[in-house]
C-alpha cells in the first residue's frame, strides 16, 4: 500500500536524504508522512505533501484536489490520489516535457481552427502555472480555495473549466483542462517509475499486466481469466522467476 494515507498514520518519517533518494528512483510512493520536511507555507488538503519539485504548496493543493475529482478513489478503490497522480504531474512539469520537449515553440502564433490543435506559446509548465494562478485568483474573489470546496462544487467548477467557460488570463480554460485530464490519465496508467500509478493501482483497476509481455502460450486460450495475476512494473521485471523477455511464457 502507498505510504501516503489520508489518515496520516504510517511508518516513521524517513530522513530527508532517504526521501530524496527514493524520489530520484521514482519510488515516491514509499514516502512516508513528512512531518520532518516542510515545503512552503502549510496547506490544507487530504494528503501530506511529498517533496514537490515544481508545484508550490497552493498549486499542489489545487492539483491534489482536482485530480482526486477527475479520478475519484479511496483506500478500497484507489483513484488519482492513491496512485500519486499529483507526483507524476509534478515530475513531468519539472522535467524536459514540462519545459517544452516535443513542442514546436517558434512563432508567429495564431489561433487557427480546431483541426490545427494547440497553438499557444506556453510550455506545459507555463500553462499550468498561468492557469492555476488564474484559477486561484478567480476563486479568491469568492473567498474560497478549490481544495476547500465541497466535492460537488469542485465538480461544477471543473465542468466550467472543461466547457471553456472561463478565460484564464488569456488561456482558454478548456485547453488547460484537456491537458490536465490527459496528464491525470497518464499519471494513473503509466509505469510507476514516473511517479504515478503507485502500487500499480491503475493497472489493477483494469487488469492490465504492465510491462510483462510474453503471451505466446496464452493468446489462443480465448477468454482466459487472468484477473488474479499481479501486474509487473519495469523496475520489477527480472526479479520474478521468469527472466525478462523470456520465450517460456507461463
Amino acid at each position, binding site marked *: 500500500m502507498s505510504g501516503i494515507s489520508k489518515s496520516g498514520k504510517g511508518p516513521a518519517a524517513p530522513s530527508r536524504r532517504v526521501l530524496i533518494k527514493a524520489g530520484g528512483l521514482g519510488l515516491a510512493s514509499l514516502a512516508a508522512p513528512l512531518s520532518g520536511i516542510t515545503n512552503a507555507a502549510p496547506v490544507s488538503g487530504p494528503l501530506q505533501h511529498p517533496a514537490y519539485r515544481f508545484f508550490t504548496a497552493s498549486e499542489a493543493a489545487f492539483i491534489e484536489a482536482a485530480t482526486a475529482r477527475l479520478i475519484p478513489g479511496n483506500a478500497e478503490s484507489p483513484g488519482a490520489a492513491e496512485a500519486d497522480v499529483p507526483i507524476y504531474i509534478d515530475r513531468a512539469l519539472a522535467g524536459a516535457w514540462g519545459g517544452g520537449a*516535443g513542442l*514546436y515553440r517558434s512563432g508567429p502564433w*495564431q489561433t487557427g481552427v480546431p*483541426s490545427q490543435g*494547440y497553438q499557444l506559446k506556453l510550455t506545459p509548465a507555463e500553462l499550468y502555472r498561468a492557469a492555476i494562478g488564474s484559477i486561484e485568483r478567480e476563486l479568491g474573489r469568492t473567498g474560497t480555495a478549490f481544495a476547500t470546496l465541497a466535492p460537488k462544487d469542485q465538480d461544477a467548477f471543473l465542468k466550467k473549466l472543461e466547457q471553456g467557460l472561463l478565460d484564464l488570463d488569456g488561456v482558454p480554460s478548456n485547453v488547460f483542462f484537456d491537458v490536465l485530464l490527459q496528464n491525470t490519465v497518464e499519471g494513473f496508467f503509466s509505469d510507476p517509475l514516473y511517479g504515478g500509478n503507485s502500487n500499480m493501482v491503475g493497472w489493477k*483497476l483494469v487488469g*492490465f499486466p504492465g510491462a510483462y509481455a510474453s503471451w505466446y502460450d496464452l493468446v489462443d486460450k480465448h477468454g482466459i481469466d*487472468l484477473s488474479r495475476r499481479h501486474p509487473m512494473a519495469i523496475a520489477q521485471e527480472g526479479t520474478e522467476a521468469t527472466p525478462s*523477455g523470456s520465450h517460456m511464457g507461463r
Partner: protein
Amino acid sequence: MSPTPTPKPVDAVVVGMGLVGSIIAKALVDAGLKVVGLERGPMRDTVPDFLAPAIHDELKYSIRKALMIDAAKETFTFRNDVGQTALPMRRIEMFLPGNGVGGAAAHWNGLVFRFQESDFVLRSHLEQRYGAKFFDPALTIADWGVRYAELEPHYDRFDRLYGVTGKAGNLQGVRQPGGNPFEAPRSKEYPNPPMKELYAGKLFRTAAEQFGYQPFIGATANLTRTYTNSEGLTLQPCMYCGFCERYGCEHFAKGSPQTTILPVLRQKPNFELRPQSRVLRINVDRERRFATGVTYLDAAGRETVQSAPLVIVSAFGMNNVRLLLLSGIGKPYEPATDSGAVGRNFAYQTLSAATVFYDESVRINPFMAAGGTGTFIDEFGGQNFDHGPHGFVGGAFIGPLLTGGRPIEFHPVPPGTPRWGQSWKDAVQRHYNHTVNILCHGSSMPTRGNYLDLDPTYRDAWNQPLLRITFDFPKNDLKMSQFVTGKALEIANRMGGKLVAGGARQGPAVTTQYQSTHTTGGTIMGDDPSRTVVNRYLQSWDIPNVFVVGASNFVHNSSYTPTATVGALAFWAADALVGRYLKQPGALVPT
C-alpha cells in the same frame, strides 16, 4: 569547432536508412558500388535500444514518442484548404514520423497487404468499368506507369526478406482456402504460416461468416516461427507482447531493417552508415542537369558535402517531397494553375470503427496481441465490389486489428460516458477487458486541393522551411466511409455484444488525434513528365541521377496498408538501378 570534414567521393549516397534506403543500399553494394547511407537520426539496434523490460514503457514510446522526431526541432504545418493559414503541428499527433536508423519500419506494426492489380491502372480500370464520367472530376486518379505483374516478383522478395506470415488466398490465379479471396495473384505462398487468431478475431469471424463473407487472418511481418531470411539473418517467433507499433521489438520477431538486412549490410567493406547526418539539400550542377551529391550536417553539426554521381532519396515519403523542394529539383505543384508536379496527389487513409461492448463474462485480454494480429474481410476493399450504385470509388478492409491493450491509449467507454469522475472510472473498469474495435481501413483518393509544398512562414531548427500539408477528406472518401462503416456495424451487431457504437469518418481532417502514418504522394510516378515527378523506374524526370523511392510515389492510396508496396517499389527501383541505370546512366525513359 574542428575543421569541416571532406569525405571522399563515393559511387552512391542514400538519403535515409529506413526500409527503402536499406534495401537499395544493399543492392548497390552487392553490385560493387561504394555506398554511403546517411540517416538524420541516431543509430538504433535491437541491442541495446529495444530490450525488455525498458521497451515496454507506454508513456515513453507511445505517448512521448521516443522513436519519432522531436517537434521542438521540426514539424509540419497543416491546413485543410488554401482558404486557411497553415499552422505548425506544435505537437505531432496525427501521424508518427520515425527518426533514426531503421526509420518507421523499426517501430511499425507489421501489417502487410499487396495492392490490387486494378490499383496500378486505377483510372483506366474505373473508366472501363463504369464510364469516364463515373467519378468526381476533382479526383486526380491516374495510372501508375507500372503494372502489378511487373511488381509481383518484388513483392515476393519483400515477403522473403521480412519473413511475412500469412496464408495465400490466390496462388497463380487459383483461389486458396483460408486466405484473402480478393488478393492479387501471388506466385508463391507466404514464407511463414499465419499468426494465431485472437479472441476478438474469432468473434468477428463467426459474425462475418453469417453474412457469407470470407474472413482471413491478416498477413504481417510479425514472425510465427524461427525463420532465416533471404539475407541469411534469423528472426524469432513473436510473443504477442502488445507493445508493437511505436516500439522496437526485443525478440527479433518483427521484420525491420535491423532484423532483416542491416547486420549484413554493415559488414560490407564498401558500405558506410553515417547516423546523425541530416541532409539539407541535394546539390545540382550549374546547368541543373545532374546531381553532384548532397550537403548534410554531421553529428557535430558541421556542414559537410558528400560527393556522389548517384543520389537515392529514400527518407520517408513526405521527407522525399521536402528534400526535392528544398533542392529546387522539379517544378513545385501549384493547385491554382494545376501546374507543376512536386507535391501533387498527397493522400492519407480514411479510417473509422465500430465498437462492440461485451458482457463481463467475455474476456478479450487485449494486451495479448502483436502489431498485425487481425482477422479481416476484404469484400468492401479497393475495387472488389460493384461501385455502380454507390457513386464513390475506393473501399476498406474491415476487421478487428487489436495491437495491444496499453491503458493510456486504450480505455474504451460507451458513448455518453462522462470524460472523468466516478462514472468514467467505473466505465473504464467495466469495459477495458470486454471491448472490441472493428477497424475500417479505407482508401484515400487524390484531389487537386490536397498537396504538399514548403511553408512560407515556419522553419525548423536548421532554418529550413517546414513542409506544409494542405489536406481534407474528399467527399468521395466520406461517402465511402459511410458505406463501409455501415457494413462494419452490421457485422458488429451480430457479434454477441451488449452494445454497439461507432460511426463513419467525418470531416474536417484534424491533426489532434492519431489516425495513420500512411501519408502518400507528392513525388508520384507515371508516364507524363508534366504531371509526375518520377518515371516508372522511380527516376527523377528532371535530374536523371536522382531516384526518389517511397510512398511518395503512390498516385493514390488504396484501402490496403502501404508498406509491402513500398518494399516492392524499393526492390523494383533497385533492379532498375543495377540492371539498367548502372549499365547506361541517363534517362531510362525518354522525355
